């Protein structure tokens, strides 16, 4: 069971919700839950598990071409073919702009001199950690895009693959880690390719919004993406009490389930700003998040 937590607008509370959902579920059921933080440009989920222990750390490698200057006739076919303008062929040399390369290997196929081979380069790192007992049995998998890199989607894919893997922790039986696997995917903001990659193949998407004109406008776009991808969804209104009532009318009119409201509460904001999971500090909220998780399970089934 994979649940994505997304939003069109940034800063509506995706990470607050994803971490609360995972920790509440883990603490109240004793089950293990994985958070896959796919906001690889600005990963934050792991910050809420200060008692975590790092289990693994690896580079995210993508394919890049290497040009053999001795064989190259500088005909320019590879540069003409490249849809991403990642190659420039000069009279004496070939230049690659690696940040633009999508790794399609077309240059390799088209080269008449067989002067192109493939190598890899790192665009960021993938981390896996296990939380301590205070936050339940939560596994956190996250990616960190290297500074200056433009393409986040290969790293997002790698984070999701890692989260789906069975290497929970050394010493645990593989069959054990396959039982009741639950993953919460913390998505990047927006509604473009990075969000699409993150919500893809999830069983349900929980959209977090705030009751403001910005929140509603971006929620509408995000819902259109999910509709296109045929992913069932529901909405959580965070910071309720601010703004206006338009989002409620919008949801009612379209028959979209409103699954939870979190009020704008100074206490919640303070706990969050210190990097703590508010649902674990306020037992009534832990209960609510555990119930929310059950409701989502029913809706996704």
């Amino acid at each position, binding site marked *: 069971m994979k649940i994505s937590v997304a939003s*069109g*607008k*940034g*800063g*509506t509370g995706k*990470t607050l919700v994803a971490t609360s959902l995972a920790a509440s579920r883990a603490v109240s059921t004793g089950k293990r839950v994985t958070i896959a933080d796919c*906001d690889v*440009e*600005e990963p*934050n989920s792991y*910050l809420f598990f200060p008692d975590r222990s790092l289990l693994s750390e690896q580079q995210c490698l993508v*394919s890049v071409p290497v040009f053999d200057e001795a064989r190259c006739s500088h005909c320019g076919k590879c540069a003409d*073919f490249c*849809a*991403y303008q990642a190659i420039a062929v000069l009279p004496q040399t070939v230049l690659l702009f690696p940040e633009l390369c*999508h*790794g*399609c*290997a*077309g240059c390799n*196929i*088209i080269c008449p001199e067989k002067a192109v081979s493939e190598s890899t380069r790192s665009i960021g790192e993938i981390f896996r950690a296990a939380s301590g007992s205070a936050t339940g049995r939560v596994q956190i998998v996250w990616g960190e*895009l290297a*500074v*200056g*890199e*433009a*393409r*986040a989607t290969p790293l997002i894919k790698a984070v999701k693959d890692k989260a789906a893997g069975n290497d929970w922790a050394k010493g645990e039986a593989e069959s054990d880690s396959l039982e009741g696997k639950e993953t919460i995917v913390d998505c*990047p*903001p*927006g*509604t*473009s*390719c*990075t*969000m*699409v990659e993150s919500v*893809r193949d999830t069983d349900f998407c929980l959209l977090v919004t705030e009751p*403001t*004109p*910005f929140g509603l*406008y*971006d929620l509408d*776009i*995000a819902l*259109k*993406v999910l509709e*296109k*991808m045929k992913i069932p969804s529901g909405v959580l209104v965070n910071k309720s009490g*601010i*703004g*206006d009532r338009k989002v409620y009318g919008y949801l009612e009119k379209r028959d979209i389930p409103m699954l939870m409201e979190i009020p704008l509460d100074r206490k919640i*904001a*303070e706990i*969050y*700003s*210190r*990097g703590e999971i508010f649902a674990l500090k306020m037992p009534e909220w832990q209960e609510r998040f555990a119930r929310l998780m059950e409701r989502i399970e029913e809706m996704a089934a």
Partner: protein
Amino acid sequence: MKQMAVVSGKGGTGKTTIVASLAALACGRAVFADCDVDAPDLHLLLSPKVAAKKPFYGIKKAFIDADRCTQCGSCQEACRFSAIDDYQVDLDRCEGCGVCKLVCPVEAVQLRESLGGHAFISDSRFGPMVHAQLYPGEEASGKLVAMVREMAREVAAARNLDLVLIDGSPGIGCPVIASLTGVDLALVVTEPTITGEHDLKRILDVTGHFGIDTTVCINKYDLHLAGSRRIEFLCREREVLVAGRLPFHSSVIEAMVQGQTVVEIGGPVAAAITVMYNVLSEKL
């Protein structure tokens, strides 16, 4: 002509609220460019009237002609994006590289332009505005950002305006890099939370990487004074100017609900933004 981009690593720190107020203060001398093309909100505050609309063609997509296809499977094998299944292209996964067309022995594959959204030139109550809307779930947002910025520079040149004010998107990836390339000044909006601080470091690394003169605005600084002090310290350490400190105040949401900018309705945040505007103007 000067270009200033307002960005933030973390989303929801207040970029658009601040850009709208800076737009009101720069009334008559600037063009406003909303480069958050997949979640654009600036138009909700500036209520622009669209004067011109341009189609945006993002990446090309592959199409397989079933009548010609011999189901040899070469394309499926060559595609690095797992975008071909059962001799059909999954358009969501296709990145338009053209390898399938290249390897097809019977010319059954075509690459077609696909409409990815629109860009607009509009008139707002504070001056011309260029904005866009990427279709839900589309790729190539960086390319659309580049198009919006190009159009904004053209408008500024044609109307003799000396400033392009850019509203960026959250993150540090492709659309953000496209918003920052070649600007004269970046303003990073952050907030005193553990996530805001973490994301600030990352975006400062990015502006540093591209050698962009950068300033910081601490929004809602009074919500967590210890956190704000840490941010001030970080900025001092990195020799980045803190150009503004905005208090938390209900006037921000009130203005948003009314479709107004904060400086139009007044209050403590409006006063702090005005001070920041003067600091930024001097920097430029």
